[in-house]
């Protein structure tokens, strides 16, 4: 019998064992191929406004995916080879040369990889259609973009090349394994009795302290980039160490405490469950820490991106308060704009205003000297936009807001810059000083307005003064008049937006700003990131889930004897099922709980700038989705464990 025949026979006879390995490889191939074929999809590229951008982001992500697939397949391969140590030992005992065994394993790997690649590319083709549709949907480009259904040859070639490399590496690794182990080692049964770890309450406490310190460092208020880097460094080290120590010491301490509580411990199957967990806890430290950190990062980043996507419309509404806005340059241009907007019957004009704004050079004001952080941008040459109170109120009314400003003569109000969390307290006692002609006027700040009425620009310096003062200002410096329109259904006004930008092409002085253009841009950007992060998150999730699954299955096989004894001693199947489900839950929930906490903190850190938004819904949605998928793994794991340990 040649190694080739042996390989084929092995695979037929051992279909179940190969099943797990096959599936884990298949998952990697499907994910990778799907992603890569999206990358090569012309339709998607064409549908995107920023194609170059898309390509770069996709490229980077596919490299991450390939690396991940390599690690993941390596892990499953190690698991698979370990499970077959005895079989390899048997061949060696029967006098098969190591070289031949190695070749047999190589052939097996090759057959398996060929099957996996074929199945993976087939499945991936179907999935890429689905994911393509999701992407198009997320980008909000509407149903106009059709996603092609054909097999992408470029993507297939790319996938085959990448996986051929990975398979080669894993094959070499298992080849080496045969040479590394002496025969006796191959036959040795699974490790006997990992003694329960010695429990140190101090180490457990230190774990809790480290994690707390890490969180505090991460969430501390920061003012400079150096501070941020330092805090993050401290947080990273503390959280990494703390997580490891938590699983190394705190979890055993918890279980040991349970064991000491005799009236609960010596009760039904509690003893079995707790002692099993204690027995395994040492071997879990690394897996648990890794899963907690991985899911923490995934959850955190996913939440951040999802929050951004979720608030894309809101932040657009803030940076582009009106549907269309342009500076009045000459009557003909203004007329043309008015006609284009008026011609759009589907999006009738709700209001049309002219807002005159005095744009004053910052050197004519005292803003540079006002100790409010944002005003440090008020360098000479930069302009400060000054509105009159009545113009502001009119615009606010047109936007359907309730916030108005009332200024007595000689008073001023500031408009809060975007993404800042200033309060009026910072302005109290300060005043806006203006040089008008030869005279100097000091206008005390009496209010901080939250709603902006004109589009965001840099520097984001807006102030409102009373009408009398404004009129004086306007005499000294000619105001710019901004024509603003508010229309119905501005999210869909793409055609009009296109016509307007064509009209304003080359006319920078028109300073055209449109809600739709900004809305589409943020949606595309955040939608793209959501898609990629979601996709990578899915991969991480699949990987962490599979890691626990593999570990559980290895342990289940080692536990068969133990559970058989329990059955003989008269533990009913129902009781066994319960204790299995309970133990599995412990193993799944623990790293998830820690990961969720980490993820929440990461999310908090990076969304600290988004003030005044309520994140509850997007957080619940993104974390809920993650937990839901995670628990599918749990259910599968309990089912498999039960089938192995609790046969009828």
């Amino acid at each position, binding site marked *: 019998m040649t190694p080739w025949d042996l390989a084929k026979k092995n695979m037929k006879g051992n279909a179940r064992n190969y099943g797990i390995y096959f599936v884990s490889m298949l998952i990697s191939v499907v994910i990778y191929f799907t992603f890569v074929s999206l990358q090569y999809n012309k339709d998607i590229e064409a549908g995107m406004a920023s194609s170059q951008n898309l390509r770069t982001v996709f490229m980077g992500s596919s490299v991450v995916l390939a690396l991940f697939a390599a690690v993941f397949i390596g892990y499953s391969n190690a698991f698979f080879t370990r499970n077959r140590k005895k079989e390899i030992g048997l061949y060696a005992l029967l006098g098969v040369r190591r070289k031949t065994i190695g070749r047999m394993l190589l052939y097996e790997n090759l057959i398996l990889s060929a099957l996996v690649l074929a199945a993976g590319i087939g499945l991936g083709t179907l999935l890429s259609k689905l994911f393509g549709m999701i992407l198009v949907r997320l980008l909000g480009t509407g149903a106009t973009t059709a996603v092609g259904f054909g097999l992408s040859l470029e993507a297939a070639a790319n996938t085959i090349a990448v996986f051929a490399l990975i398979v080669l590496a894993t094959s070499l690794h298992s080849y080496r394994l045969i040479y590394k182990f002496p025969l006796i080692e191959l036959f040795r049964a699974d490790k*006997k*009795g990992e*003694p329960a770890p010695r429990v140190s309450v101090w180490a457990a406490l230190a774990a809790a302290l480290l994690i707390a310190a890490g969180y505090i460092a991460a969430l501390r208020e920061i003012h400079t980039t150096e501070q941020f880097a330092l805090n993050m460094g401290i947080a990273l080290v503390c959280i990494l160490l703390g997580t490891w120590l938590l699983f190394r010491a705190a979890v055993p301490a918890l279980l040991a405490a349970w064991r000491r509580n*005799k*009236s609960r411990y*010596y*009760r*039904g*199957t*509690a*003893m*079995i469950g707790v*002692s*099993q967990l*204690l*027995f395994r806890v040492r071997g879990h430290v690394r897996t648990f820490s890794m899963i907690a950190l991985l899911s923490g990062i995934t959850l955190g980043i996913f939440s951040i991106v999802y929050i951004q996507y979720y608030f894309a419309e809101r932040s657009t509404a803030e940076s582009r308060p009106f549907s269309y806005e342009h500076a009045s340059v000459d009557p003909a241009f203004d007329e043309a704009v008015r006609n284009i907007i008026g011609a759009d019957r589907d999006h009738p004009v709700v209001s049309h205003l002219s807002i005159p704004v005095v744009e004053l050079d910052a050197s004519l004001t005292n803003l540079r000297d006002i100790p409010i952080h944002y005003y440090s941008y008020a360098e000479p040459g930069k302009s400060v936009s000054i509105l009159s109170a009545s113009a502001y109120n009119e615009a606010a009314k047109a936007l359907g807001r309730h916030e108005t400003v009332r200024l007595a003569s000689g008073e001023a109000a500031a408009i809060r810059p975007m993404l800042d969390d200033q309060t009026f307290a910072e302005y109290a006692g300060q005043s806006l000083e203006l040089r008008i002609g030869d005279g100097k006027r000091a206008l005390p700040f009496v209010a901080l307005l939250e709603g902006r009425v004109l589009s965001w620009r840099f520097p984001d310096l807006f102030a409102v003064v009373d009408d009398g003062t404004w009129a004086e200002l306007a005499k000294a410096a000619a105001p710019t008049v901004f024509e603003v329109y508010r229309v119905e259904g501005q999210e869909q006004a793409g055609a009009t937006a296109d016509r307007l930008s064509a009209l304003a092409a080359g006319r920078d002085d028109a300073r055209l700003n449109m809600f739709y253009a900004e809305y589409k841009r943020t949606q595309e950007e955040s939608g793209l990131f959501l898609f990629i992060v979601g996709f990578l998150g899915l991969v991480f999730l699949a990987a962490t889930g599979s890691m626990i699954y593999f570990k559980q299955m290895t342990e289940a096989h080692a536990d068969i*004897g*133990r559970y058989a*004894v*329990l*059955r*003989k*001693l*008269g*533990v*009913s*199947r*129902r*009781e066994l099922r319960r204790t299995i489900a309970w133990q599995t839950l412990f193993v799944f929930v623990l790293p998830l709980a820690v990961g969720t906490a980490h993820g929440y903190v990461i999310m908090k850190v990076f969304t600290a700038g988004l003030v005044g938004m309520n994140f509850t819904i997007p957080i619940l949605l993104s974390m809920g989705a993650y937990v839901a998928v995670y628990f599918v793994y749990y259910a599968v794991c309990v089912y498999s464990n039960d089938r192995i340990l609790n046969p009828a």
Partner: protein
Amino acid sequence: MKTIVEARNVQKTYGARGNLFTALQHIDLTVAEGEFVGIMGPSGSGKSTLLNLLSTIDRPTSGEIEVDGVSILNMDEARMSAFRRDRLGFIFQDFNLLDTLTVRENIVLPLALARADLAELERRALEIAERFGIRDILDKYPYQISGGQKQRTAASRAIVAKPSLVLADEPTGALDSKSATDLLECLQELNMRERATILMVTHDPFAASYCSRVLFIKDGSVFTEVGRGETARPLFFKKIMDVLSVLGGGAPVGG
């Protein structure tokens, strides 16, 4: 005297139609309370099958088995488990201790599963550990103790819940002769002092000589039966050896 085991015309066949293998046929067995019964026979004679039937792990093809007055044939899985837990105690050749539990925990496992009172549970553990001479190792793990200590732990576990019947499957099979003798003496004492009913399957005529009665099985049927009566143990051992030499096949000479 109360009857603990009552098996009538028990038959067990394996395999599908056309390829039947009869493991046991026409077995009748009665064990009274306080008896220490040995079952001997060559490999493949069906003695382990019989033990499996009595311990409710396997079901007979036909016939009737009652243990402690309860028919064990028509029970569902949950009741069967409860029955095993409450009425039967097991000692296995390979100990079958849980290596995740300490000796003490292994011993009290049946009581914990039955949700016995905590004080009672601890008292019983100490009492039995004392009897079997394993009090000093109560907090050790199975991998830290010797084979003899392991089997005494297993025996402690088997009797801790005061079962109606203790089933021992080759309990001395994995022990050296000194440990085997210790264990057998413990079992004998248990049988005499507490009137525990013990059914032991063994290959070993020396182990069988501790019983009050020995049943010989050959090719699935009862071959003969020897009672010890008032004979001294060495004489009984000789009697057993005589039967074995007639029985032939596969019984090693131990002792």
